[in-house]
């Protein structure tokens, strides 16, 4: 397939691997922030192609995995409100809340619909004028612009029964939080699709203040290997900077229109991350002038205090401190069909990836 096969060529991957082995002298730890990267690394067996000096750890970049239990519990509470249709991306449906999941709530009669684009929610809202449609907005700068576009379209078309429960988050604060917390990281492999929207300046502080290299990477095996090589070169030469490997998609400016929509609809707020706690200015809240689309402003639901499931170490896995095999539940009590922690649910969660590619 075009734009895929070229970046999966074995010879090319092996030649980057050889180059990497020839230049790498320092023992370094790189964090691949995005779940898509974690999956690519394991899917294509890239760990076996790295020199022993380079260790990759997985980061908190899987939107489903970092959505707080409170968010899931709130979504489920909404699904029980008479006259409410909950729309969601598919990944979220099996995530365990404190007592149940959206999938189980749907089986007991909740009107919960899987959609592939947030704009489908507008269609559902138009078709069901007597109902309220609540879209569960999750994801980073990647999916948030689409939510923003839907809200702006709803405003233009005067659709008054469409609401968003926003758990959208932004990437840089959590990366900084990990570094400040003392997680040992020598460089970041940053998600290419985030920078396709934001551009690359969002990582400048990581390089200038914390002295860490950041390479914005694509998702195919050649992309990943090249990104590791670029970071290794930076670290070996002692020059940390923000570089773009994914040049076929990302430029330093990003997508101005998407940025403007994000800014028009959302403002930053402190937000809860599953397993990581509250991180300052890491979440996206719907601005007050658009609060008529904010589910939190319109629906009052009682959501009991929740705690992380016992024995689950998702928090430490999301920090890159532990790997799924360190978890007592992994593969036993916690599997893709019966997940305990959110990292096992999404196909791009670290635990699900380890489970799938264990061999």
């Amino acid at each position, binding site marked *: *397939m075009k734009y*895929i096969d070229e970046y*999966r060529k*074995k010879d090319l*991957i092996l030649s980057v691997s050889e180059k990497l082995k020839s230049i790498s002298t320092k023992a370094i730890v790189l964090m691949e922030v995005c779940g*898509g990267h974690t999956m690519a690394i*394991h*899917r*294509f*067996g*890239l760990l*076996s*192609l790295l020199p022993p000096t380079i260790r990759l750890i997985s980061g908190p970049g899987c*939107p*489903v995995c970092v959505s707080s239990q409170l968010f899931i519990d709130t979504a489920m509470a909404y699904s029980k409100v008479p006259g409410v249709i909950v729309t969601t*991306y*598919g*990944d*979220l*449906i*099996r995530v365990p809340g404190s007592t149940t999941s959206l*999938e189980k709530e749907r089986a007991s009669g909740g009107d919960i619909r*899987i959609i*592939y*684009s947030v704009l*489908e929610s507008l*269609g559902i809202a138009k078709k069901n004028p007597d109902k309220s449609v609540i879209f569960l907005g*999750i*994801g*980073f700068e*990647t*999916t948030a612009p689409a939510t923003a576009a839907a809200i702006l379209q709803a405003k233009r078309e005067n659709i008054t029964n469409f609401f968003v429960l926003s758990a959208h988050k932004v990437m840089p604060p959590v990366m900084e939080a990990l570094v400040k917390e003392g997680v040992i990281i020598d460089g970041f492999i940053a998600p290419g*699709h985030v920078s396709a929207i934001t551009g690359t300046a969002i990582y400048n502080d990581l390089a200038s203040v914390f002295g860490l290299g950041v390479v914005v990477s694509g998702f195919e*095996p050649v992309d990943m290997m090249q990104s590791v090589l670029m970071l290794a070169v930076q670290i070996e030469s002692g020059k940390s900077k923000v570089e773009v490997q994914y040049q076929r998609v990302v430029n330093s400016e990003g997508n101005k229109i998407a940025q403007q929509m994000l800014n028009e609809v959302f403002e930053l707020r402190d937000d809860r991350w599953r397993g990581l706690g509250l991180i300052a200015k890491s979440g996206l809240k719907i601005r007050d002038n658009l609060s008529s689309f904010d589910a939190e402003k319109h629906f009052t639901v009682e959501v009991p205090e929740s705690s992380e499931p016992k024995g689950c170490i998702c928090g430490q896995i999301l920090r890159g401190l532990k790997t799924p095999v360190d978890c007592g539940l992994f593969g036993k009590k916690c*599997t*893709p*069909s019966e997940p305990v922690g959110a990292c096992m649910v*999404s*196909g*791009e969660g670290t635990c699900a990836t380890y*489970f*799938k*590619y*264990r*061999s």
Partner: protein
Amino acid sequence: MSQKENNILLGHGSGGQMMHDLIENVFIKHFGNTILNEQADSAILPVSSEEIAFTSDSFVIDPLFFPGGNIGKLAVCGTVNDLAVSGAEPLYISVSFIIEEGFPMSDLEIIVESLASEAKNAGVLVVTGDTKVVNKGKCDKLFINTSGIGLIRKKDRYISKAFNIKTGDFIIINGTIGDHGMAVMNARESFNFKSAVESDCASLNKLIREVIDKSTIKFMRDPTRGGVATVLNELAGKIQLGIEIDESALPLDKSVEAMCELLGFDPLHIANEGKVLFVAGEQDGFKILEVLKNNELGKKSAIIGRVVSDHPGKVVLKNQTGGRRIVDSLAGDQLPRIC
């Protein structure tokens, strides 16, 4: 009674004159044969075999019409294939309809026509059936339940038992994987993909008969729901040997590959309705491949993997870049990824 303009009414399932008319004007008209025409409470079947194969299936597909087929054709293919992969020769099927009140008669007739045409194509007779009409909202448009009976020769009894499978045996499939699942999903969901992908829905009994007659196979199964991954995992578990699949050998339609990439699906988990997996020794494997490739339903056949002594009970996929991963059975519904 005009069949083209009416909708199905509760009366069509009442057992009275309306139902009689429906049976005469739609079902008998298309399915008619000497056994069915007797219209007795049971079909009386002449069989001359020590053992028969007997299967049952239900079809609840949404949408009823999809590129490459409809629920009627699918009902025949699904039933016939279940018999054929057991080594049996499919002969008779039953067809029962559960229809939602208000269902367009014209759609019913299209479905019945293609069911009849596929039955003819597969060489099976529809010998009995039933019709129920339920109130609006009590079922989703139309469901079909079938049973199938086939004769099985003594010499073919071994096929469903997966005996004698050894390290080095070939895993073979008769063409591209995931076509049915992705065609239906594309028709059902609102992706707006302009994809030419069609369901592979086909009756495989004649193809399978030819393979059985010309070679020795050790095992076969149709990878329907749960896809190739699920069948191979069940097999690996049963024989307690490993199975290794070569990703570059997997026949995959370009559109299916692209849709799977976009949605984050694994084609090994997607349903097929016109595919059969064979296990055979090396020599027979090549023979099977030759037979398959000479048949319309097997043009894109391929040897996709082997039985191995490593990782007993597990299926492992070797990809183009040298990576290896475990291929699990499908855990639940496939969930599209969000970003």
